C-alpha cells in the first residue's frame, strides 16, 4: 500500500529552482532511500513533506488521499515525523524535554506532566542504551552533548512522533559504527511494523545495508526509482551525476612517494592539545599527507589548532625551518598557512556578500591592503576562480546564489591569490557534488606539484586513497597507524580506523 505519494512537486526560491519536479512513492514497511548530489533538492523535498517549506506546485497524497500540509504542525497531525539534517533541538533544554517538545504531556491542559514526560522520553532513550556515550542522560542539557549525541536526540525526537511516515535526512553523519548499527536495528523493527521510512545518506554502504528502494534526484528532478537489490553502486552514481558521468578523479590512485623537494614544508613534533595528543609527523613540499580514521578522532581539532584556531598545550610546529606557533588564524595566514573547512556555513562563507568579497579577505591581509578597488581586484580574483571551473554569473553576485560546490570553490580560491606554503584541508568536500570534488582534487594535486605541503583530512576513504601519498590513521586523538606505499588499501584503512575503537 502506498503510504505517501508526491506528484510533480516543485519549489523555487526567487530565481533559483530548488526542486523542479519531485515525484516519490513510499510504501508502508519499506526504507526508501533518496539519493542525489548536494543541492539536487532532496532536503527541499523532505521539508515540503514535513511542512516547513511551502511547495509552489504539485500534489501530496497520504494513504492515497490528497492532503494539504499547511505547516509542521499540520504535517505531524497527518502522521509525518522528521529528522532534520540541521537538527531542530533547543540547546538549553534537557534531552527529555527535547524528545517530547512537539507534544508536551499536559496536566489540566495547562501544566507540564513531568512524570509522563519522563516516562515517554525514557522509552526512546532506552533504545540507544549502551551506545549513547558518556554524559548522556535524560536530564542533561542538549547543549552540553557531543555532536553525535545531539544527533541521537534528534533521532529519538523523530521516533517519539510515532508517526506512520518517518523522514530521516542524513541522520548518521556524526554517528559512530555502533550507533549506526543500533539505529538500523530500530529502523528494521519499524519496517516490520509497517512504517514508511524515507532515508537520506551519502554513504553507499549504509544505503546497501538498510534500503529497500532508491529514488534518484538530479538537478531538482526525480530521475527514477530502483530496487536496491537489483542494482549496483556504479549504476546509482551514474544516474546521480547524469551526463557528466565520469567517475571522479579520486578513484585513481596517487603516487606512493613524491620527490621531496627542498625538505619539509611542515613539521609537527609531540603536539598535544584539546582533542589530540602526542602527534608527530612531517609533510614534505609537494606531498599530500592524508588524515584518516573515524569521524572526530582529533583530525579536525589538530588542523584547527595548527591554524591557530584551537588550543595547543605542548609540542612544536615548524613551517619550513621556522618555528610556527600561530596565536590566531590571522597570525597563521600571515605566515603562510592556509585552512579550508568542510563546514562552509560556519567557517567559510560570508553569507549575503558578493563573491568577490568572499575571495579577497586573505589577499587583503597578506598584501596589507587598505583600499579595495574592484577593477584591480577582479583581475586577481577571476583567474583564481577559473582555475577550478567555478560557475558564477558575476563577481558581484552574492555567494548564496551559488551551489554548495561552487561556494566551496570560492572559499578555496581565497588561498590561490597569494600562495601559502602549507594547505590544511579539513574534510573539504563535505556535502559537495561529484564534479566539484573532481575539480577540487585536480587543483589540490596541481598545488602539490607546485611545491605546497598539503594535509588532507577526509571522511571518505576513497578520497584519501586516491589522493594522499601517505595516510595517518587517527584513533582517540593520536595517530594509531601510518599507511605508506602499497599498504594504502581500503582494507587497511578500515581496519586501522576500527582497531580498539
Amino acid at each position, binding site marked *: 500500500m502506498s503510504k505517501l505519494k508526491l506528484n510533480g512537486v516543485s519549489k523555487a*526560491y526567487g530565481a533559483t529552482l530548488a526542486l523542479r519536479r519531485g515525484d516519490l512513492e513510499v510504501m508502508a514497511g519499506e526504507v526508501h532511500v533518496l539519493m542525489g548530489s548536494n543541492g539536487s533538492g532532496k532536503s527541499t523535498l523532505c*521539508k515540503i513533506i514535513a*511542512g*516547513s*517549506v*511551502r511547495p509552489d506546485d504539485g500534489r501530496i497524497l497520504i494513504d492515497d488521499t490528497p492532503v494539504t500540509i499547511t*505547516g509542521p504542525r499540520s504535517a505531524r497531525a497527518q502522521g509525518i515525523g522528521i529528522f532534520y539534517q540541521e537538527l531542530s533541538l533547543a540547546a538549553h533544554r534537557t534531552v527529555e524535554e527535547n524528545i517530547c517538545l512537539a507534544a508536551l504531556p499536559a496536566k489540566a491542559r495547562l501544566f507540564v506532566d513531568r512524570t509522563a514526560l519522563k516516562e515517554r522520553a525514557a522509552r526512546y532513550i532506552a533504545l540507544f542504551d549502551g551506545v549513547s556515550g558518556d554524559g548522556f542522560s535524560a536530564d542533561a542539557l542538549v547543549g552540553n552533548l557531543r555532536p553525535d549525541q545531539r544527533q541521537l536526540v534528534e533521532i529519538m525526537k523523530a521516533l517519539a512522533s510515532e508517526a506512520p511516515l518517518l523522514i530521516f535526512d542524513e541522520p548518521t553523519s556524526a554517528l559512530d559504527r555502533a550507533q549506526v548499527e543500533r539505529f538500523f536495528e530500530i529502523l528494521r523493527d519499524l519496517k516490520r511494523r509497517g512504517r514508511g521510512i524515507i532515508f537520506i545518506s551519502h554513504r553507499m554502504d549504509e544505503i546497501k545495508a538498510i534500503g529497500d528502494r532508491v529514488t534518484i534526484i538530479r538537478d531538482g528532478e526525480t530521475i527514477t526509482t530502483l530496487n536496491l537489490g537489483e542494482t549496483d553502486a556504479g549504476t546509482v552514481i551514474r544516474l546521480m551525476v547524469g551526463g557528466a558521468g565520469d567517475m571522479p578523479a579520486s578513484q585513481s590512485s596517487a603516487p606512493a612517494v613524491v620527490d621531496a623537494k627542498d625538505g619539509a614544508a611542515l613539521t609537527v613534533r609531540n603536539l598535544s592539545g584539546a582533542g589530540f595528543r602526542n602527534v608527530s609527523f612531517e609533510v614534505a613540499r609537494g606531498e599530500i599527507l592524508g588524515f584518516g580514521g573515524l569521524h572526530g578522532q582529533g583530525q579536525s581539532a589538530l588542523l584547527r589548532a595548527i*591554524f591557530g*584556531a584551537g588550543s595547543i598545550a605542548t609540542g612544536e610546529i615548524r613551517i619550513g625551518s621556522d618555528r610556527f606557533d600561530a596565536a*590566531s*588564524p*590571522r597570525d597563521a*595566514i*600571515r605566515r603562510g598557512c592556509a*585552512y579550508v*573547512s568542510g563546514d562552509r556555513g*560556519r*567557517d*567559510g*562563507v*560570508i*553569507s*549575503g*556578500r558578493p563573491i568577490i*568579497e568572499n575571495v*579577497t*579577505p*586573505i589577499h*587583503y*591581509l597578506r598584501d596589507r*591592503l*587598505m*583600499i*579595495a*578597488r*574592484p577593477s584591480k581586484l577582479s583581475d586577481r580574483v577571476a583567474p583564481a576562480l577559473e582555475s577550478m571551473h567555478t560557475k558564477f554569473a558575476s563577481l558581484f553576485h552574492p555567494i548564496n546564489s551559488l551551489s554548495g560546490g561552487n561556494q566551496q570553490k570560492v572559499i578555496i580560491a*581565497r588561498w590561490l591569490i597569494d600562495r601559502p606554503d602549507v594547505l590544511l584541508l579539513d574534510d573539504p568536500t563535505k556535502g559537495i557534488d561529484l564534479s566539484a570534488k573532481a575539480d577540487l582534487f585536480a587543483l589540490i594535486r596541481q598545488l602539490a606539484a607546485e611545491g605546497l605541503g598539503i594535509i588532507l583530512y577526509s571522511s571518505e576513504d576513497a578520497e584519501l586513497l586516491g589522493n594522499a601519498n601517505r595516510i595517518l590513521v587517527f584513533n582517540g586523538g593520536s595517530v594509531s597507524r601510518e599507511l605508506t606505499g602499497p599498504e594504502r588499501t581500503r582494507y587497511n584503512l578500515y581496519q586501522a580506523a576500527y582497531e580498539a575503537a
Partner: protein
Amino acid sequence: MSSVLSFLRQPIVVALVFIVLLLYLGELLSPGFASAAQILRLMIVASLLGIVAAGQNVVILGGREGIDLSVGGVVSLSAIIAGNVMQGADIGIVPAIAACLVAGAFFGLLNGLGVTLLRIPPLVMTLGMLGVLQGLLVVIRMGIPSGQAAPALSRFVTQPLFFGVPGIIWLWAVIGIVMALMLSRTVFGHRIYAIGSNEHAAYMAGVPVRLMRIALFMISGMFAAIAGLCLLGYSGSSFANVGEQYTLTSIIAVVFGGTSLAGGKGGYTGTMAGAFLLVILQGILTTVNIDESGRQMVFGATLLILMMFYGRGRAMRA
C-alpha cells in the same frame, strides 16, 4: 521589468517615496511646509540625527546584536564639554572638537572593550554605559555652568555657508560620501560586512574581529560626539539630557534606511534618507495643531506602519 520592481523595493527608494509623500502631505496641511527654506531647516535637524545614526549604523552593520544605546548620553556629554571648552569664543572651537572626539572615542572604547573582552551583549553594555553617562552629566552640571556655543559654530550650523546651504548640511553630505566610500571601497568596510555576516568565517579568514568591533564602537562614540557639538551650535547652549532623544531614534533611522538589525546588510545612504524621513514626520506633527497626546499616538502608529515596509523578519515557513 523585474529590475524596475526590485528597484522600487529597495529601502532607500521606499524612504525617498515616503519623504516625497510626507512633504506633499505637509504642504497640504500647512502651506509653506515644503518650501525650500523649511526643507533646509528640517535638513539641519535631520543632519544632527543623521550624524548620530552614522555611528549607530556601523555598530549595527558589525553584527553580533550590535547596537549602541549610549549614543544619547555621549551627545549630551559632548554638548556640555564643547560649551565649556569654547565658552562662547571662536578660538575655542578647535580644542572643543578635539575634546569632544576624545571623550566620544573614550566611551566608545569602553563599550568596545566590554563587548569584546568580557563578551557583554552590546545592548547590556551600552545600556549600562548610558546609566553611567547620565550620572556623569548630573555631576558635571552641578559643578559647572552649561557653557556657550561659539558664534562661528552657531553660524556653521544655522546660517547658509555655500549656495545658501548651512555648513552642517555640507558636513553631513561629506560624511555621507565618506561613509559610502568606506563601506564599499575600503578593506575596513568590507571587513565590517564580513564580521556582520559571519563573524566566525571572518575570523577564520584573518579579520581582526575584536579590534574591528572596538573600532566600530569608537566610531559610534565619535560621531555622537560630533553631533553633540553641532547640537550645541544649534541650540546655543546645552541643557540637561539634550541627547536623550537620539538613542532610539538613531536606531529607527538606521532601520528606515534598510539596514538589518541582524548586521551585515545595509548601508549609510539609506540611513540618511531614513533620518530625513523621521525628521519630516516629526516636523509635520509639530506643524499640525493637535495636542501632545495625539501627536505621540500618531507618531507611534505611523512609525509602526512605516516599519512594515522595512526589515520584516523572514516567515518561518519558506
